[in-house]
């Protein structure tokens, strides 16, 4: 009888806790989405500023429309190594190139 009681209490507690947890998870997901959008906007603005300066230092800056998104992933890794571009600057330029 005692295990049955414990089980019932556990089930009851789970039901009580499940609702707030689900709400918290949804809230966290919404917040994460908003944060991701804000980060995208920040990187895009920074990338738009850095792209003509950093790229033109060695060669003509090529527009984002020239390559597919996955190609920019590869090229930006290559350029980050070659130019020793600071990581956040590289992310910003990549975001800008992939968005255009």
């Amino acid at each position, binding site marked *: 009888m005692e295990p049955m009681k414990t089980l019932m209490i556990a089930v009851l507690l789970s039901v009580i806790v499940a609702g707030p947890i689900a709400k918290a998870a949804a809230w966290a997901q919404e917040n994460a989405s908003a944060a991701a959008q804000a980060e995208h906007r920040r990187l895009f603005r*920074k990338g738009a*500023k*850095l792209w003509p*300066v*950093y790229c*033109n*230092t*060695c*060669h*003509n*800056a*090529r*527009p984002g429309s*020239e*390559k*597919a998104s*996955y*190609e920019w*992933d*590869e*090229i930006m*890794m*290559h350029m*980050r*190594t*070659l*130019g*020793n*571009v*600071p*990581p*956040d*600057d590289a992310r910003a330029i990549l975001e800008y190139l992939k968005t255009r």
Partner: protein
Amino acid sequence: MNARRFPKLVLFVLAVAIAIPSARVRADDSSDAKSLRTIVRELKRLERDRSHDRDQIQRLEKRVDQLETENAQLKASSTEVKTEATQTAQVVKQIQTQQTQSQASPQEFSSAIDRYLGSHTFSVTGAAGVDFLYDQQPHAIDGIPRGSQNTFALDWEPMVLYRPADWILFEGVGSFSFGQNGTGADLSLADFQIFLNDYVTVVGGLFDQPFGDWYENQSPMWVNRFVTAPLPFAVESVVPPAEAGIQLRGGMQWGAEGQDIDYTMWTGTGPSFSEPVPGATVSSPTPIRSAQTNGKSFGGRLRFYPIPVDTDCGRLELGASTYNGKWMGDRWFTSWGVDFNYFKGNLQTRGEFLRSYRSMPTPFAQDNREGWYVQVGYFLNGLGQGFLPEVVQKITDKTELLVRYSGVNQHSVAIDDITGAAAVVSSGVQVGLLPDFGLSGSPALFAPHAREVALGVDYWIAPSIVWQNEFDLELPRAGGLFTNANGTSLPVGSTPNDRAFLSQFTIGL
């Protein structure tokens, strides 16, 4: 008093007494009648007003009834709309719930596609070009025959990028060329890059020498503003062009946006030379003479960017490099260099100075050499706006004018390196050095004190498609030695002042 007259008087008095009130009454009657008429008129007017007001009230009452009816209808409609909206929202919510429960979100869909296609990506970039070279060689140089020549050359340098994950990249660059030497194929680069963290990247394999700015950043044919390389990186290079080994590198921001600093450290196979004589061609990682490549190399480069982007003052890069290694047993080869690059708007300038020292076997003295170049380019776009014809304006908007001065100083040049570069034979007689892709073929390039002024006109069809035209003036200074393989040296006499024209169409893939 007369008795007879008395009754008459009395009668008269009585008559008057009676008549006066009567007259007053008649006058009073007339005034009341007027008042009555006025009152009657007033009453009639009031009656009319009342009647009018009653009509007005009736009309207003009707209007109020009508408005109340309309209001009631509107209330009913509003309730209906609210009900419908609530129902619609419920339906939408149901659909969303169903979609969430039963179908993939866009992120999930993308993820599913990625899983289907795989996370590995692969692409081919690089460059390709066709080159026309005309080299006028009016003078001989110490018995080396030559002659003016012109030829076409082709080159394709595909770069393969393979990205297994976001922390690792493999790159390979091949070079397939066709020139007067025939068809050639070469592996220029093959390395992997591992991004350990934000500040350290490991590069291993065959890579461009990270010395200065030229080999790594300026040597691709569509990136180089000229057709040829500046003299310190051309046929008589001061430091080897490539290395097989491993690097650690990275960059970081030290101040405002754009104020960066970066480092590269590497170790590799080490330098080798074509001959154990002064002035021999330096190479790595391919040992020109394997017996002479014994020591490993180590190098370092630091680059500094002092100008913040927000100041709109352009971008300045200042760099310093060193590359050192042993060759032929315990003999040292050491080198250092400094470089700069400044870019703002239509203007771009860059330059490098580098020096190397090589300890030599007996009986030779230390073999020192140095080289430099300074280059200035200016885009004409926007220039002459308004007064040039539109057709001319369209051309100038894509045109870049360039000038470059470069030179090399070395005590000696290995004569075998020059003759080894010359394979065009006519009836057993050598007739000239070989022009090839990016090389005019002028023997003046092999002079101990080579100097070159290069003038360029680049027409940019697109950011990575360019038609380049270069006119070279070879102006080597007299002096120095030609040394043969057994160490016998001859003073260099004449200085060939060649002219060369190179035209190249190239595309960055």
